[in-house]
């Protein structure tokens, strides 16, 4: 159920009765820029820790305990060119508590407090909080380099997108930019977010929409008209080949590959693209899993996944440095095989069953209702479970071959455990 609260502010209530908890999320959406990505990341951290009423983490977490261990958090995400700064809250439904005390009302009030009434001193964010969160976020981003799998994926992303400022920036921002943000800059930016961002609110659970609407309508948000959150079909960049090798003192090497992927979200070949990915490397029944891992014993993980909003597929593997050429050859061969139609109907049927089964299974997690609803709002279209499943089932052998023929390897990044000797 969709309720327009004001221009640019929408409430979507999704009534589901199977859960004991209610999930609320508030999304501030804006066209992403490199600079704003860092601002929003720091903002998310500051707004999570305190507010006027709850001046420190103790008071915040005690209030969450009063809401029966409600889970609260802020997050940042990007879907193509749209940046999402989100606040989410999950709390139990009154039915399961001994005293029924309209917990959801209190939960919504808590969210409003955290979003609209940050801890302010002298028309700035509380200086100590600001500095602490700035220091911590910079340290956190620097320490992410110690997770080699995600480090390699980020390096690949930067290499692939090259000069595309938005897409080559990590969603959590950049440490050196964050370090330069001043309290005044961020506070001004915060006011801008409240005044201009598109706002999408979602509530999933066994709830009453009118009750929620009454509360949300009182939130201090004015109408807004400058929406710039369109997700548009991609125009593909020139095909360029990029390769990079980096050596670190690690044990396992990472070979990551990026491919141009010829589908956009829900376009005519979208479903064929989804099935292709699951067949190629996106599931445990995939050709990469079967051939790189099970047959050749070269890796523990060898997977592919697609970002349909950016027309991108990436392959990630963890291997011995000496096996690099062999792994490259096997991966390339799997793509060729699919292009040539060299996969059985049985295998294809299994892949489709796995996909539809996962889709249905996702209906058992409240979060997936929210994320699907947000996507629907962003692309302004709806697909029912039935339609999705029917579309996956309809994908033919030749449609998958056609997609595969348009998948092009453009970038490879190798994080090597050893210095290669010159032969």
């Amino acid at each position, binding site marked *: 159920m969709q309720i327009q609260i004001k221009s640019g502010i929408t409430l979507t209530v999704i009534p589901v009765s199977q859960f004991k908890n209610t999930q609320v999320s508030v999304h501030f959406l804006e066209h992403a820029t490199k600079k704003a990505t860092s601002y929003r990341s720091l903002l998310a951290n500051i707004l999570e820790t305190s507010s006027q009423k709850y001046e420190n983490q103790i008071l915040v977490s005690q209030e969450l305990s009063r809401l029966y261990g409600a889970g609260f958090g802020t997050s940042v995400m990007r879907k193509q060119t749209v940046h999402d700064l989100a606040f989410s809250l999950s709390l139990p439904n009154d039915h*399961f508590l001994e005293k029924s005390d309209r917990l959801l009302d209190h939960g919504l009030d808590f969210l409003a407090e955290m979003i609209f009434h940050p801890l302010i001193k002298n028309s700035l964010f509380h200086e100590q909080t600001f500095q602490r969160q700035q220091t911590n976020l910079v340290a956190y981003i620097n320490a992410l380099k110690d997770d080699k799998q995600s480090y390699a994926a980020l390096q690949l992303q930067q290499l692939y997108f090259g000069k595309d400022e938005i897409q080559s920036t990590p969603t959590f921002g950049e440490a050196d930019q964050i370090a330069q943000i001043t309290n005044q800059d961020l506070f001004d930016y915060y006011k801008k977010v409240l005044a201009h961002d598109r706002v999408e609110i979602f509530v999933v659970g066994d709830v009453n929409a009118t009750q929620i609407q009454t509360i949300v309508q009182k939130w201090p948000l004015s109408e807004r008209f400058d929406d710039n959150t369109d997700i548009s079909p991609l125009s593909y960049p020139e095909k360029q080949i990029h390769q990079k090798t980096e050596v670190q003192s690690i*044990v*396992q090497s990472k070979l990551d590959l990026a491919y141009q992927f010829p589908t956009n979200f829900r376009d005519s070949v979208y479903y064929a693209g989804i099935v292709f990915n699951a067949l190629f490397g996106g599931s445990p*029944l995939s050709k990469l899993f079967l051939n790189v891992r099970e047959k050749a014993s*070269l890796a523990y993980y060898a997977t592919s996944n697609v970002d349909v909003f950016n027309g991108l597929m990436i392959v990630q593997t963890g291997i011995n440095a000496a096996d690099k050429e062999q792994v490259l050859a096997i991966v390339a061969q799997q793509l060729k095989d699919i292009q040539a139609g060299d996969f059985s109907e049985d295998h294809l049927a299994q892949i489709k069953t796995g996909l539809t*089964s996962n889709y*249905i299974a996702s209906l*058992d997690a409240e979060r997936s209702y929210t994320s699907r609803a947000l996507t629907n709002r962003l692309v302004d279209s709806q697909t029912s479970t039935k339609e999705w499943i029917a579309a996956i089932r309809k994908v033919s052998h030749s449609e998958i071959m056609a997609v595969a023929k348009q998948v092009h390897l453009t970038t490879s990044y190798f994080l090597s455990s050893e210095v290669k000797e010159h032969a």
Partner: protein
Amino acid sequence: MHKRVYKQFNETLYSETLTNGLRVNILPKKGFHKTYSTFSTNFGSIDRTFIPLGQSDYVTQPAGIAHFLEHKMFDKKGYDAFDLFGKYGADANAFTSFTKTSYLFSATQNIHENLDILLNFVQEPYFTKESVAKEKGIIGQEIQMYDDDPDWKLYMGILGNLYPHHPVHLDIAGTVASIAEITVDDLYTAYQTFYHPANMDLFVVGNIDPEETLTWIKENQAKKSFMTFEEPKVKLGTRETGNEDITKQKIVEMAVNRPKSVIGLKGLDVVPIGVAGLSYRLKANLLLYLLFGESSEQYLKLYDQGIIDDTFSYEFDMERSFHYISFSGDTDKPTEFIEAIRTILQQADQLLPQLESQFELAKKEMLGRLLQRMDSIEAIANSYEGRQFGYTTVFDQTAIYENMTLSDLTLLAPKLFNLDGFSTFQIQPMKGQKA
């Protein structure tokens, strides 16, 4: 079939122990779409020195045997269990911990078929020399992946300090060298000793009818015969609860960007098993939450001093034959971090009496967290620990929390916080090199 109704949560748990000893738990979840099932044995990475079924002397198998066996179980004569699950639309997986091996699937259809596949592939061992050799490459890469993971290194580092003579200090997957020694015979020996139905639990949660599901399981089990069950005899090293062998401090260098520290506190007291064991664990969790959780004065103070940040976490692990607390985080002030935690542990008896109102709030918090877990069919099945905690489930935990008092925690603190079991492990960035 035994039926246990949890009225407050509108849930009913059905359970029965079959004639072959297999304990079955079934929890129907109305309105849910998928069914999740785990089939687990009380056999984990610590169980490497044992008397093989039908023999009389202890043998010690290569480290990593339980995990290797888990991987190899999927390979069957003429088929792969993974593929067969795939054919019936199920996602299958397995995991090995220090004390347990679990095989699992989740599916939205063909539940009867998938349950049969689960029971059959785990109960029909088939190992060959060729496939054992092949698996060594895959698991070798799994081990090397963890070799580069500083958080895992930190975790194994503190276990090494606390338990130098207990096999929990050995990596669950073993090492590249130890798995190289694993043979087909080793796998059969371990299998026969630990995979008897009487040493196993089956848990099914989801969109199912309990009576019908139990009938399927019984029909499947009736077709198989098993040897007489003998309780596995496992040796877990010497001085399991003593403190005389603890390494007090260790610092290693690794290619990391920030120093990482962990403090371990080995449990030196003797803890109960069964429901009393669960109660001990929940009390310990609440105690730690009150002293070190985000709503504690101590947390805020250390956070504001820049000694801890959002990477700080604490954990109480209590499994068959060992229990310990760990406090870990990225910190540029490791010495201050270690001293601060030590001081709080020492002052627990003075701090606790002032926390009456926080204690009541914490109980509310825990009830809410349990309700969150009740919405996840995976969490319901995975948190079941069988015999160790008296065959309880997440639904039994609320009553334990409700009956808890602050003086329970005051009594527990001196037993649990015995600083004779205190140890630290640090990872420092390599000198002269940036990762």
